[in-house]
């Protein structure tokens, strides 16, 4: 999906079943029960791809929902980030988990450099600045 879809292209599963592809690259139309039974479908074939999230972000923006669009774009950024890293960053963002600002900035750097997740990295950096100002680098347990 290279062009920018709008409200009229929604739902994509109906308007573009062949263009919708899983993270693995397999087209949505190839995910059949026969394929599952034949052992040809793995969990990566059932994972959403960043391109679909960006398409949905474009639809959300066209429908007048810019904040939802931004969240879907952050989601697109995180598609390539492994589950354990996602959960580790989430935990680090919780109050008192990071001992100082540097820990969060390190996490942001890793998201940007290793996974190209620039939008999310900037978001984590913003959190680091706010947490410092609001005194959130404090002992919790």
């Amino acid at each position: 999906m290279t062009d920018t879809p709008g409200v009229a292209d929604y739902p994509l599963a109906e308007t573009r079943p062949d263009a919708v592809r899983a993270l693995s690259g397999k087209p949505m139309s190839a995910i059949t029960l026969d394929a599952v039974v034949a052992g040809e479908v793995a969990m990566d074939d059932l994972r959403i791809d960043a391109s679909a999230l960006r398409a949905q972000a474009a639809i959300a923006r066209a429908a007048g929902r810019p904040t939802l669009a931004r969240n879907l774009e952050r989601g697109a950024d995180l598609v390539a980030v492994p589950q354990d890293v996602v959960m580790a960053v989430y935990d680090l963002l919780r109050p008192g988990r990071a001992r100082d600002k540097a820990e969060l900035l390190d996490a942001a750097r890793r998201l940007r450099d290793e996974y190209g997740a620039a939008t999310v990295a900037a978001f984590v950096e913003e959190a680091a600045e706010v947490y410092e100002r609001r005194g959130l680098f404090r002992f919790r347990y």
Partner: protein
Amino acid sequence: MSDNRWRRFADWDARPLRLDKFAREDPENGFAAMRSPRDPAAAVAVEDGRIAMMDGTAAADFDMIDRFIAAYHLDPAIAPEAMAIPALELARRLVDMTAPRAELVRLAHGLTPARLAEVVGHLSALEMAFAYAKMRARRTPGNQGHVTNAKDDPLQLAADAAIAVGLGFDEIETTQRVARNAWSNALACAVGASVGRWGALFQCASEEAEELAIAMAGFTSYAETVSVYGSEGAFVDGDDTPWSKAFLAAAYASRGVKMRATSGGGAELLMGFHQSQSLLYLEARCLCLQRAMGVQGTQNGGIDGAPVTMSTPGGARELMAENLIAVWLDLECASGNDARPTESEIRVGAKIMPYLVAGSDLICSGMGSVLKYDNSFNPSLLNGEELEDFLVLQRDFEADGGLTPMGEDRAMALRERALAAVAAVLEHLDLARPTPAMLASVAAASGSNDTASFTPGDASRISEAIRARGITVIDAIRALAARGFADEAENLLALVRLRLSGDYLQTSALVRDGRVLSAVNDPNDYAGPGTGYRLDPARREAITGLRDTLDEREVLRSQEMFRKAEALRARYRSLGDAAAGTAPGEVVIGLSPAFGTRLFKTLAGEGVSDMLRAVVEGVREGGGAPRIVRMLHTADTSFLGLSAARMSGSGVGVGLQAKGTAVIHQADRLPHHNLELFSNAPITTLDHYRRLGANAAAYALGRDPEPVVVPTRGEALGARFHAEVALIYAIETGLCRDGAAPEEIALDFTGAP
């Protein structure tokens, strides 16, 4: 009297209502629903294209929540315009059907929490319900149900999930009594929800990381336990920040999982960080924050805080107000009606009504589809016990609450199919071997107290095996297919496959008839009567199709069942036109036209001849002489009695309808000014009829008997009987002919007394 208390208060004390505790308004301690003196005045300042001040706080002094709202919710290009509109003017636009929703949503992007709360504060409860109907995002209403049980029994979860899906819940949500049973719950509900149709979105509420892992394994399709709070203290105590929760929202999106946040009046109060501010203002902050995070929707309207909110003056109105702000901010709204906020069934019914008639994306953010004791979230406003009451409310108000009545055969078929399917999956994946006795006990069980099935410990072993062996939804689909459950395998796959397009990540998305329906392709277009969501004929028929309804055929069938027995008990022979009598002790008993010929059973369930025999014997015991006449010109009780009285030698007569209504009348009285009347036929016994006969004889002989009073306990007899009464009475009036002469009847009681 030593008792100086009006005993009505003792009666009131004994009612369930008085188990509810009510709190005094006390803003300093956080008990203020709509408005507190500590709520800030609404204001905004924009400098250099940035928000420099919001609701009286300068940017330099923003707490985390202010900061997040100012950065991501408030649109500096819209805020000056929107904030310049007086609150009352905005309130009027909310209920003005000619003011477009889209324009109000645009303006909301520039409104601060204090202004949003101020505006909805101008609306009455009725206006809020109307505004909600106009402002909610998706046109078609929906509903969500809880599927849990007290044993975490996977068999019962599967059977109950199939029922919930069959009833029409668009989303089902489970959770567990024992935290480590989440995987077992998820597998069982996913399999059960694949029976009958596909498309119900499914959630397994558990610890954040585990919930996401279960979603990654493909068992679940949405999450809603991402809580946010309206004060910084509550947020941090809840172990999160706006940034951590927004990050989690993005994480769910990245895995193709639908997500909404949770907030709701009373949460900050319960957590001890209320800042002496009103429930509504704090919730307005939560909602602006949620839009700022970019979540598509919210679960609000009290939720766990609903009971404490409902303890305050105006609490129910506050819950409506916060739901209204949610939809004004263009968020999907799973509108609470969740945690049971009262023991009073009247308060329950009143609470649900505005949402039912206004419609909502998800009317309940968890109706208990299971019994109260099986609801692992705690009892809901409405539960398995009261679910049919909700179905009737839909029918009463011709309002779509998202559910559809189900017959007994259908319910059992769904349960048995779901049990067979989940048993096949558990066996095929070598997770457990349910016995036929276990399956049979669950199939018929209303709740887990009635089952002989898996224990919480069994569920833990199943759950741990699923987690440890990395079993995914693909394994479940393959197991279903291998064991001959091809439809269920297809259904489960169809839902998981939908993940790839991300269509259900848009606002207010659900799946109906195989299609994603959301605010994008099914936007609420309400603009007055004749617009917006309306029941189509098929949906109306589905909603009104309750079980066990009455019609004329049903009434006649029930009467016919008595015909044979009645034929053995009494014989009525017509002797031609009846003449006026002259004997001083005579009591004429005037029967209605269908008495013993088309109608054979009274509303109390007695054969009509038994009733008549009681009256006849009563007259004789009282020293009178009964004579039977059938009226053919009227079926009305008063005129049956008065006509009988005018033919009676004593001037006293009895009127008797087949359904059991009876009157004693006197020849010189006005038609509706009788001597005695039994108007409540369903609670009138044979003994009452016997005593009525005796009194009729006493009047005939010039005595002054004590009237017979049929005691009532205040039953809603109209509700219980009037549908049947109307159908029965039409049979009586259908036999009446103008000017027809009364018939003399020779009556033989042929049965044993």
